[in-house]
């Protein structure tokens, strides 16, 4: 084993592409742990509610009911119940629409908030929401475009997020120098800080300043405040960078920091082997690689080690045992392909469908739960599947469609109740309408008017006589009539002094009646006029009510027809949408299965190439042995 012995590995041809892809991947992945879906509604501080409907929308959103939130928001907007929240409500609408996958609607709303009629804060928040969306869709150019006018004057989380997002987008468009500059002024020390430092380190390495980048990666890789997976990642990136710059000893030291129980353990072990090999310590490379080969061959790093290990033996250590090691590795890789074939069979037999159905039916279950809900032959591969964004996208849409379908089916039942409710109201109306329209009511009303007219006529006639006795009260009229009768009877009797006292009494009483009528004459005229005016007012109100009823009757009919029309239209929309939803669910499920098949095929193809490569190396070993005339390996 010598330095020269390590050279045949000739990894120099591998490194540039490897490193480039690795670093790019690390940079792009450094947003792990950050919430790029944050919207106006997601800010943690309590929101001041000035319209109850706005608070209701927030309640549904914060409670995890995205659909309910966006529907309630649109209802509140249609009912003009958000007057105190103005642009906040629009920002919320845009954020909710983005979150619910209504990108076109969201962009329409958020771009509408970018003009000068809105405050700088509203414009900044709208731009940030648009930038997050562009980034999530994998469009760094648009991310940069929409962030471009955003000033970094503000402090705190908003500033950090803009800065980090801008740097990530710059890295993605291959402008690492600009990305490094963007992050150079990073100030805060909150949870985003380690990610920012990591990204800056990657940007520095990629912009040709490896010393600065490696120093920063060293800091991130050691800092106990940094989340452990990010520390591992920093050390991994540093290790492969140092391999690239032919500093294997320093690389080995970085690989050695990576936790063996972390997500980067196998990549770290593989790197450690390469570092040892680069340093000419092939024996030392055997340690990590042998350790890797004891692990399941599912992991690509293990597969890589399965080929690298016999290769090292073939090159320098023990050519005689190399062939057997190649055979063993080929066997394990073959077995792995066999497992993939079994998984593909299970997939073809619908093995994923029940698991997906269960996962869709339980929105609270994490995607990883799928592993426990598929046949054992598929379970091993499902972990990789559920980690992909494409899978998560399909699953989210499937869950949304499930919720939509259930909602539409609920409405389909409820709308029958609407029909019933409307029918009940209509029946009640039909029952009462004839009463209202009864001609006897009109006749009675006409009779009231006729009686009023007669009263007026009588009153005016009596008034014209200018005789107070024409306006006697009923009691007075009765008394007056009786006194007149007494007078008549007394006049018929012969003159008799004994009757004079009665005649006097009759005259006095008749005078009292007249005196009282005369005294109260003006008041009685006023009272009669007032009473007649009241009768007029009551008759006018009666007229109004009758007219109102006529209108109500017509409007009720129109209202029933309006409701019936809206119910019918909604019912048609439900019936049109339901088959589309079912169709989309089926297509989404098919796409998910196709994605699983695609991943299995890709794995199988990679293994096929590895096996072919191993067989080629094995054939070369036999050929070399045959040419040398020595013992056959």
């Amino acid at each position, binding site marked *: 084993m010598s330095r020269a012995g390590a050279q045949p590995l000739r990894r120099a041809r591998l490194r540039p*592409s*490897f490193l480039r*892809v*690795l670093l790019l*991947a690390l940079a792009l*992945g450094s*947003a*792990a*742990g950050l919430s*790029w879906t944050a919207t106006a509604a997601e800010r*943690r501080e*309590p*929101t001041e*509610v000035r319209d*109850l409907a706005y*608070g*209701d929308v*927030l*309640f549904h959103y*914060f*409670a*995890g009911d995205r*659909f309910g939130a*966006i*529907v309630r928001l*649109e*209802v509140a907007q*249609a009912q003009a119940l958000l007057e105190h929240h103005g642009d906040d409500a629009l920002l919320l609408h845009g954020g909710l629409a983005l979150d619910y996958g*209504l990108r*076109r609607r969201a962009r329409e709303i958020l771009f509408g908030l970018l003009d000068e009629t809105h405050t700088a804060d509203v414009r900044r928040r709208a731009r940030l929401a648009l930038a997050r969306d562009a*980034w999530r*869709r994998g469009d760094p150019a648009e991310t940069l475009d929409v962030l471009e006018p955003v000033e970094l004057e503000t402090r705190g989380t908003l500033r950090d997020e803009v800065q980090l997002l801008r740097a990530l987008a710059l890295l993605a468009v291959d402008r690492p120098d600009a990305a490094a500059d963007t992050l150079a002024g990073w100030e805060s020390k909150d949870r985003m800080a380690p990610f920012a430092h990591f990204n800056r380190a990657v940007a520095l390495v990629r912009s040709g300043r490896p010393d600065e980048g490696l120093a920063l990666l060293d800091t991130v890789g050691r800092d106990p405040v940094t989340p452990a997976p990010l520390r591992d990642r920093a050390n991994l990136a540093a290790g492969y960078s140092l391999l690239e710059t032919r500093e294997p000893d320093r690389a080995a030291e970085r690989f050695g920091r990576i936790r063996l129980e972390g*997500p980067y353990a196998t*990549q770290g072990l593989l790197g450690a082997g390469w570092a040892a090999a680069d340093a000419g310590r092939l024996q030392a490379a055997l340690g990590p690689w042998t350790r890797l080969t004891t692990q399941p061959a599912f*992991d*690509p790093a293990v*597969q890589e080690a399965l080929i690298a290990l016999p290769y090292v033996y073939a090159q320098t250590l023990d050519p005689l045992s190399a062939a057997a090691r190649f055979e063993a590795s080929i066997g394990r890789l073959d077995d792995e392909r066999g497992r993939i074939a079994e998984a593909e069979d299970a997939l073809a037999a619908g093995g994923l469908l029940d698991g997906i159905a269960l996962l869709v039916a339980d929105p609270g279950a994490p995607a990883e739960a799928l592993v426990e809900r598929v046949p054992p032959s598929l379970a091993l591969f499902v972990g990789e599947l559920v*980690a*992909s*964004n494409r899978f998560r996208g399909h699953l989210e*849409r499937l869950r*949304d*469609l499930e919720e939509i379908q259930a*909602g*539409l089916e609920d*409405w389909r039942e409820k709308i029958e109740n*609407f029909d019933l409710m409307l029918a009940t109201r209509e029946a009640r109306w039909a029952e009462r309408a004839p009463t209202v329209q009864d001609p006897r009511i009109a006749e009675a009303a006409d009779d009231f008017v006729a009686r009023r007219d007669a009263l007026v006529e009588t009153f005016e006639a009596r008034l014209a006589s200018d005789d107070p006795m024409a306006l006697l009260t009923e009691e007075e009229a009765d008394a007056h009539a009786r006194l007149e009768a007494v007078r008549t009877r007394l006049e018929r009797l012969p003159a008799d002094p004994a009757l004079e006292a009665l005649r006097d009494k009759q005259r006095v009483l008749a005078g009292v009646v007249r005196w009282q009528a005369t005294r109260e004459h003006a008041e009685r005229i006023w009272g009669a006029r007032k009473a007649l005016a009241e009768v007029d007012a009551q008759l006018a109100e009666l007229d109004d009510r009758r007219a109102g009823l006529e209108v109500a009757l017509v409007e009720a009919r129109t209202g029933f027809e309006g*409701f019936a029309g809206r*119910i019918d239209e*909604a019912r048609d*929309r*439900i019936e049109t*949408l339901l088959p*589309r939803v079912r169709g*989309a669910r089926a*297509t989404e499920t098919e796409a998910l299965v196709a994605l699983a098949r695609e991943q299995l095929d890709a794995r199988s193809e990679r293994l096929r*190439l590895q096996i072919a*490569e191993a067989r*080629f*190396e094995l054939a070369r070993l036999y050929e070399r042995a045959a040419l040398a005339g020595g013992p056959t390996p």
Partner: protein
Amino acid sequence: MVPSRFPILATLVLALVAFPLPGRAEDAPSASALEDEVQDLKQAVVALNRDLFILEEELLFPSSTQVQVFLSLDVGTFFALESVQLELDGKEVANHLYTPREVEALHRGGVQRLHLANLDRGDHELVALFTGRGPNDRDYRRGAELSFEKTLGPKYVELRIRDSEALQQPEFDIREWE
């Protein structure tokens, strides 16, 4: 081994990056026809639901008789809400048990519409009973009541749970919105 090792290493790298990329979707689905179709469907369903909610409200809860009861929580340091029972004119009309997520939603500024009802014009009485954990994690049950007049327009009532710093106790009240 060397030239042909590249695809395997590239594969390895792809596997490496597959782990933690919730932020940006390097393998996110493009704006596919399927995604567009689902987006169209969602938009149509949101619009339909909006129209149905409005129709339902107009049909079943006309504004002349409509009463809405909301619940809000301000701070909530002294009280961990578990349930609310609502009585209108002596009759229980709502009883809600809160999930931790709903309580969190209230803490973050959400306002829950607890009840929607029809009431005739005139005087009515609303009683709310709040149950949960009070100071020192003790069982806590308090009530609040409001007499109000239902007029021609819709009536909005808010049940409020607030912290009284002075008393180191929760406060419960009910207020009418204009």
